[in-house]
């Protein structure tokens, strides 16, 4: 590995391209720590947003109109307001309100915690709509066929509706999760040490803004590329002839 580090040092001394994140151990550690935070934050938010999406889609099928209205209100609120404003709202307003109610000093959750909550609800709102659209795309006649074979409504949901709905959902879900990865950069604003925040610290210390900007592009292109590859493989593996394509 030392050869690689030395090469970057040479690149700096000969050509003035200053990528300290490769040869300065302190910068390297905090930078890769930042990438790890981005990955971690993305994965946790993806998982939670999918859970929220499924729960919301299920609640939207409720026969009680006020339950459906609450879900609809949640979707409208999180879909129609900027994610940065939502993050500030949670981090500053909700946190201090909770702190005064509970008496916990120094905030109820860390900035990372509020980023997880805020971004999960943000992406979750879109997921509710995506899953609902998927469920509604399953032909009623398919459900009737299962009914007439004696399936209970829960069995119909598990064995017919869900398997068909998620095949329809995947492309839209894919898009939303890509968006989520990109939106994790707003956590910068409340000092979550993710990729952009750390990069900013490094270019402030080392005066290497152009180099670090390019590195940040590269990091997000690679992270999103990995997700896209995984999702496409998944889409391909569950494709069945004559359905949804």
């Amino acid at each position, binding site marked *: 590995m030392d050869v690689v580090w030395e090469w970057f040092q040479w690149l700096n001394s000969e050509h003035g391209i200053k990528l300290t994140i490769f040869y300065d151990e302190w910068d390297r550690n905090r930078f890769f720590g930042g990438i790890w935070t981005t990955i971690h934050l993305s994965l946790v938010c993806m998982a939670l947003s999918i859970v929220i999406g499924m729960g919301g889609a299920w609640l939207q099928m409720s026969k009680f109109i006020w339950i459906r209205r609450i879900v609809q209100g949640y979707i409208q609120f999180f879909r129609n307001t900027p994610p940065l404003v939502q993050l500030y709202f949670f981090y500053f307003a909700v946190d201090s309100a909770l702190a005064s109610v509970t008496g916990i000093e120094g905030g109820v959750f860390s900035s990372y915690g509020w980023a997880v909550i805020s971004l999960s609800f943000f992406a979750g709102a879109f997921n509710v709509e995506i899953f609902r659209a998927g469920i509604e795309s399953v*032909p009623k*006649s*398919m459900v*009737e*066929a*299962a*009914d*007439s*074979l*004696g*399936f*209970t409504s829960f*069995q119909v949901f598990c*064995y*017919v509706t869900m*398997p*068909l709905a998620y*095949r329809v959902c995947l492309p839209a879900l894919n898009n939303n999760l890509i968006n989520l990865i990109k939106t994790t950069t707003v956590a910068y604003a409340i000092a979550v040490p993710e990729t952009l925040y750390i990069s900013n610290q490094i270019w402030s210390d080392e005066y290497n803004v152009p180099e670090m900007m390019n590195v940040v592009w590269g990091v997000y292109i690679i992270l999103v590329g990995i997700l896209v590859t995984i999702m496409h493989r998944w889409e391909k593996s*569950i494709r*069945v*002839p*004559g*359905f949804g394509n």
Partner: protein
Amino acid sequence: MSTKTDWSADQPIVSIKDVYKSFGELEVLKGINIDVMKGEVICIIGPSGSGKSTLIRCINALNDINSGSIKVKGMEVNDSELDKLELRKEVGMVFQQYNLFPHKTALENIMMAPLKVLNQPIKEVEEKARQLIERVNLVGKESSYPGELSGGQQQRVAIARSLAMNPEVMLFDEVTAALDPETVNEVLLAIKDLAQKGMTCILVTHEMGFAREIADHIYFTDRGVIVEHGPPATFFTEAKDPRTQEFLSQIL
């Protein structure tokens, strides 16, 4: 649950009495009476919108009825306490659009209900499914998805899927209406085979030649009522009602 009632083979296996059904303002069935004995083959014919499909959908409770009574093997279908599973074990249904599960292979489509609904052991279910595939003449297509099969093949899988539940009565809702002409025959042959082996069948159909050949009794419906009925030998030649005569003259 009040489902098991005493029923004996000398009583109709399906008994429809004075059934009324409306969708909102629209009255679709206006006092229908039909009795079907075990092993009988009944064809219901009539112009579009005459309530034929609604009627057979009521028999396995896909539609509820407003008044009257439908009994299958003594079970009252119009009873809110009815255990629908018990009903649907007795009544199989085949649809116009096949409605196979597109994410399952032909064999899996047939195996699904016995596995999940009846919780039968997989080995037994698979053996039975393979026999059914053979019965509907689809050997070699076991692992094809519905999207890879022709309409006629899909419809035969759908028939096999219903038979896998060992029903006493089979309902066929215009099962050849969506098929290419050249595949209609293979589906009719599969139904004929069933009928000849003693399955009780209720068919809604536009295939008059077929109805004439296999039906024990033909019912002609128009605007929600049974206009005329009789055995095929007399029905087609001695229709009395002008509406029946007009319908037959258009179709034959």
